[in-house]
């Protein structure tokens, strides 16, 4: 960091020196640089009946494996399909040993089952956290080690609280460590405050003042922790750890560039991010005002996720659409019952689910195209990334977890896209995919999560 006389720091361009790259192969591809998970609840439509016995595939491409043709639900992705890799036939490793929905979201990025059955979490870290740790050796340059966002989160039985129903990310091995996503778009927007020039120096003064508060807190946490027993000490140390990260990040000032600039502020009045606190188990509490703003807020938050990556504020993100209960309505689609109702509460409704899933595909297309428009210096943001689009199950009518609706996007690490790979049913698992993703980032392990669910990395590059 260079400091000028006024105390304003100028960020140096980040150099590819950190030694995480795989040795260059004959194709000489860059190690993947950024990872993004996009979660959509409620699987997709491949049957018409509740019990999944009458096939009607509206998700998987037709055509050939090297020239796929988008099916009904994924038509919105046609414009970006050259950057997509469809992976058909994978099963979730842990299928139906915990609670049907929870297990899918808890297991999606961890390759594990719920640690102690329903309402509990994973004993493994999620791969996004593993990747973030990988990037973070040495002084962490990123304001946000990981950036988790969720739109219309914690509906239904979770009542606005973090629970196994809505947790996708887990920080640590060996103990319950779910990470709650950021849900308030206006608060997330504050992350970009540094991108407007600090001409009067006022922001620098505020930053210094905040740092002095954090410094005293550091002293206090350390002092109190020293007087406590081991378990309590650990709690305070973890908290202190987070405070220290906040302080470290205050020092990171990102230079605005032609690709990195604060996204346009969006008025989200009427959208209550915490509306889940008033939710009822069955989704009978309806917040139409908030639900109606999901498209606008979702797009704003996607824009911010893209810009956070473009500005190198983070390298690892999670974009979560609601949760596995998904007990909110879709007023703009004229669907006035909640998603779970169409999944199975009211009996599986293939047409309504198709409408919903197609809308999610449109959002995903928007996100990927936005990433593909950012020039990171001779290649796009999407080129250097791996984006994993998935759900907690495949057929919502009866919570099937075979043939999971998984799509990868981006060319990070040499991921070969524009393809549709089909794996023989029941043979390969989501764990195999998680390992393959890790490998794209130069992490060369051969298994991840629950050992029994692994069959070796999928070959994707």
């Amino acid at each position: 960091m260079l400091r000028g006389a006024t105390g304003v720091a100028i960020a140096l361009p980040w150099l590819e020196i950190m030694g995480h790259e795989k040795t260059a192969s004959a194709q000489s591809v860059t190690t993947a640089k950024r990872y993004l998970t996009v979660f959509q609840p409620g699987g997709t439509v491949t049957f018409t009946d509740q019990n999944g016995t009458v096939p009607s595939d509206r998700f998987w491409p037709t055509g050939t494996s090297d020239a796929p043709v988008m099916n009904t639900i994924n038509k919105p992705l046609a414009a970006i399909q050259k950057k997509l890799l469809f992976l058909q036939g994978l099963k979730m490793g842990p299928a139906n040993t915990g609670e049907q929905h929870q297990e899918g979201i808890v297991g999606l990025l961890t390759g594990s089952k719920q640690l102690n059955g329903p309402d509990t979490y994973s004993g493994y870290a999620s791969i996004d956290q593993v990747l973030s740790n990988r990037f973070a050796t040495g002084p962490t340059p990123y304001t946000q080690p990981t950036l988790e966002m969720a739109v219309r989160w914690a509906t239904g039985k979770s009542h606005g609280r973090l629970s196994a129903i809505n947790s996708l990310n887990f920080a640590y091995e060996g103990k319950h460590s779910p990470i709650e996503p950021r849900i308030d778009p206006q608060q997330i927007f504050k992350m970009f405050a540094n991108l407007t020039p600090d001409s009067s120096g006022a922001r620098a003064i505020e930053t210094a003042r905040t740092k002095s508060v954090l410094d005293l807190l550091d002293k206090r946490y350390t002092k109190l922790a020293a007087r406590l027993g081991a378990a309590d000490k650990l709690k305070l140390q973890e908290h202190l750890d987070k405070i220290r990260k906040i302080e470290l990040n205050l020092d990171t000032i990102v230079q605005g560039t032609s690709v990195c600039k604060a996204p346009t502020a969006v008025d989200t009045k009427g959208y209550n991010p915490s509306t889940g606190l008033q939710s009822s188990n069955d989704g009978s509490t309806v917040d139409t005002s908030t639900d109606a703003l999901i498209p606008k807020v979702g797009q704003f938050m996607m824009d911010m996720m893209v810009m956070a990556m473009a500005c190198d504020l983070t390298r690892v993100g999670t974009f979560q659409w609601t949760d596995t209960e998904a007990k909110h309505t879709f007023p703009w689609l004229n669907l006035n019952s909640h998603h779970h109702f169409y999944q199975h509460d009211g009996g599986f409704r293939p047409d309504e689910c198709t409408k919903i899933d197609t809308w999610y595909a449109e959002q995903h297309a928007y996100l990927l195209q936005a990433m593909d428009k950012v020039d990171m210096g001779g290649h796009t943001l999407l080129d250097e990334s791996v984006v994993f689009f998935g759900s907690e199950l495949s057929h919502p009518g009866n919570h099937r977890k075979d043939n999971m609706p998984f799509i990868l996007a981006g060319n990070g690490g040499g991921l070969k896209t524009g393809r549709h790979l089909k794996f023989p049913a029941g043979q390969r698992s989501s764990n195999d995919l998680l390992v393959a993703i890790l490998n794209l980032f130069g992490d060369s392990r051969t298994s991840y999560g629950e050992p029994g669910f692994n069959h070796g990395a999928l070959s994707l590059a």
Partner: protein
Amino acid sequence: MRRLTRFEYNNTVAELKLDTSNQAVNLAAELDGNGFGNDADNQPVSDTTAAAYKQVAESIAAAVTAPDTLPKFLPCAANIAASAEVACVRGLVEGLLPQAYRRPLDAGEADEVVALFQSSRVASTFAKSVASVLEFTLQSPDFLYRPELGVPVAGRADLLRPTGAEMATRLSYFLWGTQPDDSLRAAAAAHALDTTDGVRNQATLMLADPKARKLVTFFFDNLLPISNLAQLERTGVAGFSSKLGAAMRQETETFLEHVIFDGEGTWPAALAADYTYVNEDLAKFYGIAGVTGSEFRKVSDLNHRRGLLTQAGMVAGPLASDKGNPVTRGGFIVKKLLCQNIPLPTGDIAALVKTPPADPTKTTRERFAAHSVNGACRGCHINMDPVGFAFENYDTIGQWRDTEQNLPIDASGDSPLVGKFNGPSEFAQRMAESPVAQACLASHWVNYAYGRKLPSAGSDACSVLSVQSKFKDSGYNVQKLLLSVAESDAFNYLPAVRE
């Protein structure tokens, strides 16, 4: 070591005169844990948690130190001369910090916070520098967490007692959901909380404070399915409105407050009472004559109702939309009020689960018959469905009905847990007589007070049994239950060696 929940944070910052705008809604979501969000083992801290505490602290500090509010909060700040600033802030720190830390200050603790003010003051305004003090206080571990260092116990190297200040904190968060007040702090300083008798006496006084009623209401708002009644969506059912739902919630809250604090005092009385509390709207709904006006008053002229479980909010609350579901109704009672652990279906059994389709020739009971016929289902559902069927005479908004689709309703049943009954009033009576139901309520209060999710390991088990046994001896009196929790060993001691 426990951390303040959002409910507690809000109450505490209000007691500190810092904020009354429910800022805690912006804090990180609590894990579901023991159902009250306050169990110490389920309070992780992530980047977002820490960021949220910071954000909320800054938000509150900014509001307090705004030009029109600062002089009201800190009178010496009005038109303050530069030379008077440090003394003014020292006064603030010496008054605020011991309350926020919930203990007397150690040497140097006030000084370091005054020094923080002074270092901010070099480049920032007076108001912003005062904000530093508040931002620090609201994020400090002594405020957010409840550390307990304890004092030795004569003759017991394995135990400590909480210090007076720590016991005051235990009592005030247990019975009032907020920080200690002046009287409690004085009692701690006078060593009145150094013995179990002293703790019990103090708890008795505290139960007489209105804050105890607020806490008890909070407890039941979490335990019972009543906090969302105003938002129930029952578009297909005539006669329901958000206003009515809110009244149903208030009925149950008012009723329980009365029973526990002013009336018979016992849980069986709550379960089998022949009276309730209604306002005009609810009286019309229930078909009770002669009630006008919006205040809630006691009525005994009940038709088809008996006790807590038959109140409209209690039978409407567990239900999905405007479709009846005896499984969720029965499941709520069996899991929450009888403390039975009934796991959700998994694997092959889960694949069998589907909602029985609507059928104009069948009652709900008949439509759900598969649960008692199919061997895979029966094992669990034998516990829940009979209980749910007992309430089939109440529709999805809690209204009595004699028939369903013009078919007669059979509300008789046999619960393995509470025995035989015919109809909801008899079921309520069985619950009132059930030792399992009483022990269950006791264990929820223990969970809440100890900040645990039972079953807990080790020495707590004896305290729990003792509390449940005293509950029984007292005739299941709820205030006495709270007192026996306060005088239990687990509440009065902590282990000397923490892992």
